[in-house]
Protein backbone atom coordinates (compact mmCIF):
# COMPACT_ATOMS: atom_id res chain seq x y z
CA UNK A 1 0.00 0.00 0.00
CA UNK A 2 1.30 3.43 -0.89
CA UNK A 3 1.20 5.91 1.98
CA UNK A 4 1.68 9.52 0.90
CA UNK A 5 0.42 12.75 2.36
CA UNK A 6 -3.34 12.75 2.50
CA UNK A 7 -5.43 15.15 0.46
CA UNK A 8 -7.81 17.56 2.17
CA UNK A 9 -10.60 19.47 0.53
CA UNK A 10 -11.60 22.92 1.67
CA UNK A 11 -12.92 26.21 0.28
CA UNK A 12 -11.07 29.50 -0.02
CA UNK A 13 -13.34 32.45 -0.81
CA UNK A 14 -16.03 29.91 -1.75
CA UNK A 15 -13.74 28.23 -4.26
CA UNK A 16 -13.33 24.48 -3.63
CA UNK A 17 -9.66 23.50 -3.52
CA UNK A 18 -7.66 20.36 -2.77
CA UNK A 19 -4.45 20.43 -0.77
CA UNK A 20 -1.92 18.06 0.73
CA UNK A 21 -2.45 17.86 4.47
CA UNK A 22 1.01 19.36 5.12
CA UNK A 23 0.31 22.47 3.08
CA UNK A 24 -0.57 25.85 4.56
CA UNK A 25 -3.57 27.98 3.67
CA UNK A 26 -1.21 30.51 2.07
CA UNK A 27 0.50 27.96 -0.18
CA UNK A 28 -2.73 26.48 -1.42
CA UNK A 29 -4.31 29.91 -1.92
CA UNK A 30 -1.39 31.00 -4.06
CA UNK A 31 -1.44 27.75 -6.04
CA UNK A 32 -5.04 28.57 -6.87
CA UNK A 33 -4.37 32.16 -7.85
CA UNK A 34 -5.90 33.66 -4.73
CA UNK A 35 -3.80 36.52 -3.41
CA UNK A 36 -3.22 36.93 0.32
CA UNK A 37 -0.99 39.90 1.20
CA UNK A 38 2.24 39.09 3.06
CA UNK A 39 5.30 40.95 4.26
CA UNK A 40 7.55 38.72 6.39
CA UNK A 41 6.82 35.66 4.24
CA UNK A 42 9.15 34.78 1.40
CA UNK A 43 8.86 31.63 -0.70
CA UNK A 44 11.86 29.48 0.16
CA UNK A 45 12.26 30.61 3.78
CA UNK A 46 10.60 29.06 6.83
CA UNK A 47 7.32 30.88 7.53
CA UNK A 48 7.08 32.52 10.96
CA UNK A 49 3.68 34.25 11.06
CA UNK A 50 5.36 37.42 12.24
CA UNK A 51 3.84 40.34 10.37
CA UNK A 52 0.16 39.20 10.59
CA UNK A 53 -0.65 40.66 7.19
CA UNK A 54 -1.77 37.23 5.95
CA UNK A 55 -4.53 36.94 8.55
CA UNK A 56 -7.59 35.11 7.17
CA UNK A 57 -10.97 34.19 8.60
CA UNK A 58 -11.75 30.51 9.17
CA UNK A 59 -15.40 29.65 9.74
CA UNK A 60 -15.98 28.45 13.29
CA UNK A 61 -12.82 30.08 14.68
CA UNK A 62 -13.45 33.44 16.37
CA UNK A 63 -10.01 34.95 15.81
CA UNK A 64 -8.39 35.29 12.38
CA UNK A 65 -5.41 33.00 11.78
CA UNK A 66 -2.11 33.59 9.96
CA UNK A 67 -2.40 31.82 6.61
CA UNK A 68 1.36 31.26 6.29
CA UNK A 69 1.59 29.03 9.37
CA UNK A 70 -1.86 27.42 9.47
CA UNK A 71 -2.18 23.96 7.92
CA UNK A 72 -5.22 23.08 5.89
CA UNK A 73 -7.95 20.92 7.39
CA UNK A 74 -10.77 18.91 5.91
CA UNK A 75 -13.86 21.03 5.29
CA UNK A 76 -12.24 24.33 6.26
CA UNK A 77 -14.02 27.44 4.97
CA UNK A 78 -11.47 30.22 4.53
CA UNK A 79 -12.18 33.87 3.72
CA UNK A 80 -9.19 35.97 2.65
CA UNK A 81 -10.87 39.35 2.48
CA UNK A 82 -13.38 41.08 4.77
CA UNK A 83 -13.84 44.51 6.34
CA UNK A 84 -12.37 43.17 9.59
CA UNK A 85 -9.28 41.76 7.84
CA UNK A 86 -8.73 45.00 5.94
CA UNK A 87 -8.93 46.90 9.20
CA UNK A 88 -6.37 44.59 10.86
CA UNK A 89 -4.04 44.72 7.88
CA UNK A 90 -4.18 48.50 7.79
CA UNK A 91 -3.46 48.64 11.51
CA UNK A 92 -0.43 46.36 11.08
CA UNK A 93 0.90 48.70 8.40
CA UNK A 94 0.19 51.79 10.49
CA UNK A 95 2.07 50.37 13.46
CA UNK A 96 5.05 49.45 11.28
CA UNK A 97 5.20 53.00 9.94
CA UNK A 98 4.80 54.62 13.34
CA UNK A 99 7.43 52.51 15.12
CA UNK A 100 10.39 53.53 12.94
CA UNK A 101 11.34 56.50 10.79
CA UNK A 102 10.18 55.83 7.25
CA UNK A 103 11.02 58.85 5.16
CA UNK A 104 10.15 57.44 1.75
CA UNK A 105 11.10 60.60 -0.15
CA UNK A 106 14.77 60.20 0.77
CA UNK A 107 14.93 56.39 1.04
CA UNK A 108 17.14 54.20 -1.13
CA UNK A 109 14.18 51.85 -1.66
CA UNK A 110 11.61 54.50 -2.63
CA UNK A 111 9.61 53.01 -5.50
CA UNK A 112 10.89 49.46 -4.85
CA UNK A 113 9.65 48.71 -1.33
CA UNK A 114 7.14 46.08 -0.21
CA UNK A 115 5.97 48.18 2.76
CA UNK A 116 5.38 51.24 0.62
CA UNK A 117 3.51 49.18 -2.02
CA UNK A 118 1.24 47.63 0.61
CA UNK A 119 0.52 51.04 2.12
CA UNK A 120 -0.71 52.21 -1.24
CA UNK A 121 -2.65 49.00 -1.90
CA UNK A 122 -4.52 49.47 1.37
CA UNK A 123 -5.15 53.16 0.71
CA UNK A 124 -3.08 54.22 3.69
CA UNK A 125 -2.99 57.97 3.11
CA UNK A 126 -2.15 58.82 6.72
CA UNK A 127 -1.74 57.17 10.13
CA UNK A 128 -4.40 57.17 12.82
CA UNK A 129 -1.76 56.37 15.47
CA UNK A 130 0.90 58.91 16.46
CA UNK A 131 4.39 58.62 14.98
CA UNK A 132 6.94 57.60 17.62
CA UNK A 133 10.03 59.07 15.91
CA UNK A 134 12.41 56.78 17.84
CA UNK A 135 16.15 57.35 17.64
CA UNK A 136 17.89 54.63 15.64
CA UNK A 137 21.36 54.14 14.28
CA UNK A 138 22.73 53.38 10.85
CA UNK A 139 25.48 50.75 10.64
CA UNK A 140 27.71 51.54 7.67
CA UNK A 141 30.72 49.60 8.92
CA UNK A 142 30.45 46.85 6.28
CA UNK A 143 32.53 47.51 3.16
CA UNK A 144 29.63 46.85 0.73
CA UNK A 145 26.34 47.11 2.61
CA UNK A 146 24.45 49.46 4.93
CA UNK A 147 21.97 48.63 7.70
CA UNK A 148 19.52 51.42 8.53
CA UNK A 149 17.46 50.50 11.59
CA UNK A 150 15.11 53.40 10.83
CA UNK A 151 13.60 51.38 7.97
CA UNK A 152 13.59 47.89 9.53
CA UNK A 153 10.24 46.17 10.09
CA UNK A 154 11.72 43.21 12.01
CA UNK A 155 10.45 40.70 9.47
CA UNK A 156 13.57 38.53 10.04
CA UNK A 157 13.89 37.64 6.37
CA UNK A 158 17.60 38.56 6.70
CA UNK A 159 17.97 36.33 9.76
CA UNK A 160 16.32 33.40 8.02
CA UNK A 161 18.04 33.65 4.64
CA UNK A 162 21.46 33.94 6.31
CA UNK A 163 20.77 30.94 8.53
CA UNK A 164 18.77 28.70 6.21
CA UNK A 165 20.28 29.39 2.81
CA UNK A 166 23.74 30.86 3.28
CA UNK A 167 24.37 28.81 6.44
CA UNK A 168 26.27 31.62 8.16
CA UNK A 169 23.72 32.75 10.80
CA UNK A 170 25.25 36.20 11.11
CA UNK A 171 21.91 37.87 11.93
CA UNK A 172 19.74 37.63 15.01
CA UNK A 173 17.07 39.53 16.88
CA UNK A 174 18.02 41.47 20.02
CA UNK A 175 15.77 43.14 22.62
CA UNK A 176 12.00 43.14 22.97
CA UNK A 177 9.00 45.13 21.81
CA UNK A 178 9.80 48.53 20.34
CA UNK A 179 13.44 48.15 21.43
CA UNK A 180 13.92 45.01 19.35
CA UNK A 181 16.36 45.24 16.47
CA UNK A 182 18.42 43.02 14.22
CA UNK A 183 22.06 42.49 15.16
CA UNK A 184 25.08 40.90 13.53
CA UNK A 185 27.13 38.31 15.41
CA UNK A 186 27.34 39.23 19.12
CA UNK A 187 25.75 42.67 18.69
CA UNK A 188 28.80 44.19 17.06
CA UNK A 189 29.31 46.38 13.97
CA UNK A 190 28.47 44.44 10.80
CA UNK A 191 31.89 45.24 9.34
CA UNK A 192 33.56 43.45 12.24
CA UNK A 193 31.45 40.29 11.86
CA UNK A 194 33.54 37.13 11.54
CA UNK A 195 30.67 35.02 10.21
CA UNK A 196 29.35 37.31 7.42
CA UNK A 197 30.45 35.99 4.04
CA UNK A 198 29.46 39.19 2.25
CA UNK A 199 27.09 37.27 -0.06
CA UNK A 200 24.41 40.00 0.08
CA UNK A 201 21.43 37.61 0.29
CA UNK A 202 20.09 39.46 3.33
CA UNK A 203 20.19 42.74 1.43
CA UNK A 204 18.13 41.36 -1.44
CA UNK A 205 15.47 39.59 0.60
CA UNK A 206 14.97 42.64 2.83
CA UNK A 207 11.55 44.04 1.86
CA UNK A 208 12.43 47.65 2.73
CA UNK A 209 15.32 50.08 2.61
CA UNK A 210 16.76 48.74 5.88
CA UNK A 211 19.43 46.74 4.08
CA UNK A 212 20.99 48.24 0.98
CA UNK A 213 24.11 48.22 -1.13
CA UNK A 214 26.58 51.01 -0.57
CA UNK A 215 26.73 53.60 -3.34
CA UNK A 216 22.97 53.39 -3.95
CA UNK A 217 21.26 56.72 -3.49
CA UNK A 218 17.59 57.72 -3.11
CA UNK A 219 15.32 55.49 -5.27
CA UNK A 220 18.28 53.51 -6.58
CA UNK A 221 18.11 50.30 -4.54
CA UNK A 222 16.23 47.50 -6.28
CA UNK A 223 16.05 44.01 -4.81
CA UNK A 224 16.31 40.82 -6.86
CA UNK A 225 15.15 37.63 -5.22
CA UNK A 226 15.20 35.19 -8.15
CA UNK A 227 18.12 33.33 -6.58
CA UNK A 228 16.07 32.04 -3.67
CA UNK A 229 13.91 29.32 -5.27
CA UNK A 230 16.93 27.98 -7.22
CA UNK A 231 19.13 27.72 -4.16
CA UNK A 232 16.30 26.09 -2.26
CA UNK A 233 15.75 23.52 -5.01
CA UNK A 234 19.44 22.72 -5.34
CA UNK A 235 19.74 22.25 -1.61
CA UNK A 236 16.71 19.94 -1.49
CA UNK A 237 18.12 17.98 -4.41
CA UNK A 238 21.36 17.42 -2.57
CA UNK A 239 19.60 16.24 0.57
CA UNK A 240 17.56 13.50 -1.12
Amino acid at each position, binding site marked *: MITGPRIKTLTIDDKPVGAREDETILTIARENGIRIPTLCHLEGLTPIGGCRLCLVEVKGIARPVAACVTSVQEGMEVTTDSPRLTQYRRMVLELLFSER*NHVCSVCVSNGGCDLQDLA*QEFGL*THLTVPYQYPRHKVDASHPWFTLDHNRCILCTRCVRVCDEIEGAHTWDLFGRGMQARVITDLNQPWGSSQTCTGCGKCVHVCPTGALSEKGKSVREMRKSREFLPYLRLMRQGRQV
Partner: protein
Amino acid sequence: MNKVRVATLWLDGCSGCHMSLLDMDERLIALTEKIEIVYSPLVDTKEFPQGVDLTVIEGGISSEEDLEKIRTVRANTKVLLALGDCAITGNVPAMRNTFPVSEIFKRVYEENSDFNQEVKPVLVVPALLPKSRPVHEFVAVDAYLPGCPPPADAIFFALSELSEGRVPELGSLSRFGR
Protein backbone atom coordinates in the same frame (compact mmCIF):
# COMPACT_ATOMS: atom_id res chain seq x y z
CA MET B 1 -22.24 81.79 -9.39
CA ASN B 2 -20.08 82.43 -6.35
CA LYS B 3 -16.58 81.09 -6.69
CA VAL B 4 -15.25 78.56 -4.20
CA ARG B 5 -12.95 80.34 -1.75
CA VAL B 6 -9.63 78.47 -1.61
CA ALA B 7 -6.58 79.15 0.55
CA THR B 8 -3.15 77.51 0.56
CA LEU B 9 -0.73 77.51 3.45
CA TRP B 10 3.01 76.80 3.52
CA LEU B 11 4.18 75.43 6.86
CA ASP B 12 7.25 73.21 7.50
CA GLY B 13 7.84 72.01 3.96
CA CYS B 14 10.19 72.93 1.12
CA SER B 15 7.55 74.64 -1.11
CA GLY B 16 7.77 71.66 -3.46
CA CYS B 17 4.05 70.95 -3.01
CA HIS B 18 3.26 74.50 -4.08
CA MET B 19 5.58 74.01 -7.06
CA SER B 20 3.63 70.87 -7.95
CA LEU B 21 0.44 72.90 -7.63
CA LEU B 22 1.80 75.36 -10.20
CA ASP B 23 2.75 72.36 -12.36
CA MET B 24 -0.95 72.04 -13.21
CA ASP B 25 -0.04 74.61 -15.86
CA GLU B 26 -2.98 75.74 -18.00
CA ARG B 27 -5.39 73.67 -15.94
CA LEU B 28 -4.88 76.34 -13.27
CA ILE B 29 -6.66 78.78 -15.54
CA ALA B 30 -9.55 76.38 -15.99
CA LEU B 31 -9.69 75.96 -12.20
CA THR B 32 -9.87 79.71 -11.61
CA GLU B 33 -13.21 79.73 -13.44
CA LYS B 34 -14.51 77.88 -10.41
CA ILE B 35 -12.24 78.91 -7.56
CA GLU B 36 -10.77 82.08 -6.13
CA ILE B 37 -7.46 82.04 -4.22
CA VAL B 38 -8.15 84.16 -1.15
CA TYR B 39 -4.96 83.46 0.80
CA SER B 40 -1.68 81.83 -0.23
CA PRO B 41 2.08 82.42 -0.58
CA LEU B 42 1.08 83.06 -4.22
CA VAL B 43 -1.18 86.06 -3.44
CA ASP B 44 -0.78 89.13 -1.28
CA THR B 45 -3.37 88.76 1.51
CA LYS B 46 -1.72 89.19 4.91
CA GLU B 47 -4.44 87.97 7.28
CA PHE B 48 -6.15 84.62 6.95
CA PRO B 49 -9.72 85.49 5.89
CA GLN B 50 -12.98 84.16 7.32
CA GLY B 51 -15.34 81.78 5.56
CA VAL B 52 -12.83 79.86 3.46
CA ASP B 53 -14.29 76.82 1.69
CA LEU B 54 -11.11 74.82 1.15
CA THR B 55 -7.59 75.18 2.55
CA VAL B 56 -4.64 73.23 1.19
CA ILE B 57 -1.82 72.68 3.69
CA GLU B 58 1.77 72.04 2.71
CA GLY B 59 4.19 71.15 5.52
CA GLY B 60 4.05 69.87 9.07
CA ILE B 61 3.61 71.71 12.36
CA SER B 62 7.09 72.65 13.52
CA SER B 63 6.93 75.99 15.37
CA GLU B 64 4.64 77.91 17.67
CA GLU B 65 3.70 80.06 14.70
CA ASP B 66 2.69 76.99 12.63
CA LEU B 67 0.48 75.87 15.48
CA GLU B 68 -1.20 79.26 15.83
CA LYS B 69 -1.75 79.44 12.07
CA ILE B 70 -3.24 75.98 11.73
CA ARG B 71 -5.72 76.69 14.51
CA THR B 72 -6.82 79.92 12.84
CA VAL B 73 -7.09 78.13 9.51
CA ARG B 74 -9.17 75.28 10.94
CA ALA B 75 -11.54 77.68 12.67
CA ASN B 76 -12.19 79.51 9.39
CA THR B 77 -12.18 76.66 6.86
CA LYS B 78 -14.84 74.18 5.84
CA VAL B 79 -12.60 71.54 4.24
CA LEU B 80 -8.92 70.98 5.00
CA LEU B 81 -6.67 69.08 2.57
CA ALA B 82 -3.29 67.88 3.87
CA LEU B 83 -1.09 68.00 0.78
CA GLY B 84 2.15 66.06 0.64
CA ASP B 85 4.22 63.93 3.00
CA CYS B 86 5.43 66.75 5.30
CA ALA B 87 1.84 67.67 6.21
CA ILE B 88 0.89 63.99 6.56
CA THR B 89 3.92 62.20 8.06
CA GLY B 90 6.37 64.94 9.06
CA ASN B 91 8.70 63.68 6.30
CA VAL B 92 12.14 65.31 5.93
CA PRO B 93 11.60 68.18 8.42
CA ALA B 94 10.69 65.51 11.00
CA MET B 95 14.12 63.95 10.67
CA ARG B 96 15.13 66.41 13.40
CA ASN B 97 12.61 64.76 15.73
CA THR B 98 15.01 62.21 17.13
CA PHE B 99 17.15 65.03 18.59
CA PRO B 100 16.15 67.59 21.24
CA VAL B 101 15.93 71.19 19.93
CA SER B 102 18.85 72.19 22.18
CA GLU B 103 21.08 69.62 20.47
CA ILE B 104 20.04 70.88 17.04
CA PHE B 105 20.87 74.47 18.01
CA LYS B 106 24.23 73.34 19.33
CA ARG B 107 25.01 71.48 16.13
CA VAL B 108 23.87 74.23 13.76
CA TYR B 109 24.87 77.41 15.57
CA GLU B 110 27.93 76.29 17.53
CA GLU B 111 29.65 73.28 16.01
CA ASN B 112 28.94 74.17 12.39
CA SER B 113 29.56 77.91 12.69
CA ASP B 114 32.90 79.69 12.88
CA PHE B 115 31.67 83.01 14.24
CA ASN B 116 29.05 84.38 16.69
CA GLN B 117 28.56 80.95 18.17
CA GLU B 118 26.76 82.40 21.16
CA VAL B 119 23.97 83.89 19.01
CA LYS B 120 20.89 81.68 18.76
CA PRO B 121 17.65 82.43 16.89
CA VAL B 122 15.53 83.04 19.97
CA LEU B 123 14.23 86.56 19.20
CA VAL B 124 11.74 87.55 16.47
CA VAL B 125 11.67 84.15 14.74
CA PRO B 126 9.07 81.71 16.10
CA ALA B 127 10.24 79.13 18.62
CA LEU B 128 10.55 75.56 17.41
CA LEU B 129 8.27 72.95 18.92
CA PRO B 130 10.02 69.85 20.32
CA LYS B 131 9.06 67.91 17.17
CA SER B 132 7.82 68.58 13.65
CA ARG B 133 4.54 66.68 13.48
CA PRO B 134 1.71 65.94 11.03
CA VAL B 135 -1.14 68.43 10.76
CA HIS B 136 -3.82 65.90 11.74
CA GLU B 137 -2.18 65.37 15.13
CA PHE B 138 -3.30 68.96 15.98
CA VAL B 139 -6.49 69.68 14.03
CA ALA B 140 -9.03 67.59 12.12
CA VAL B 141 -8.09 67.01 8.48
CA ASP B 142 -10.74 66.12 5.90
CA ALA B 143 -8.66 64.77 3.00
CA TYR B 144 -5.11 63.52 2.53
CA LEU B 145 -2.98 63.46 -0.61
CA PRO B 146 0.45 61.95 0.13
CA GLY B 147 3.53 62.33 -2.06
CA CYS B 148 6.79 64.22 -2.10
CA PRO B 149 5.51 66.13 -3.92
CA PRO B 150 2.14 64.74 -5.01
CA PRO B 151 1.90 64.77 -8.82
CA ALA B 152 0.14 67.73 -10.45
CA ASP B 153 -2.49 65.41 -11.96
CA ALA B 154 -3.44 64.15 -8.50
CA ILE B 155 -3.60 67.69 -7.12
CA PHE B 156 -5.81 68.76 -10.02
CA PHE B 157 -8.18 65.87 -9.40
CA ALA B 158 -8.26 66.53 -5.65
CA LEU B 159 -8.96 70.25 -6.07
CA SER B 160 -11.59 69.67 -8.75
CA GLU B 161 -13.45 67.17 -6.58
CA LEU B 162 -13.10 69.04 -3.30
CA SER B 163 -14.19 72.33 -4.82
CA GLU B 164 -17.36 70.56 -6.01
CA GLY B 165 -17.99 69.50 -2.42
CA ARG B 166 -16.98 65.86 -2.86
CA VAL B 167 -14.30 64.15 -0.74
CA PRO B 168 -12.70 61.68 -3.16
CA GLU B 169 -10.58 58.60 -2.49
CA LEU B 170 -7.05 59.83 -3.17
CA GLY B 171 -4.85 56.93 -2.00
CA SER B 172 -4.60 55.32 -5.42
CA LEU B 173 -3.36 58.53 -7.08
CA SER B 174 -0.19 58.89 -5.06
CA ARG B 175 1.81 57.29 -2.26
CA PHE B 176 4.32 58.19 0.43
CA GLY B 177 7.53 59.38 -1.18
CA ARG B 178 6.23 59.57 -4.72
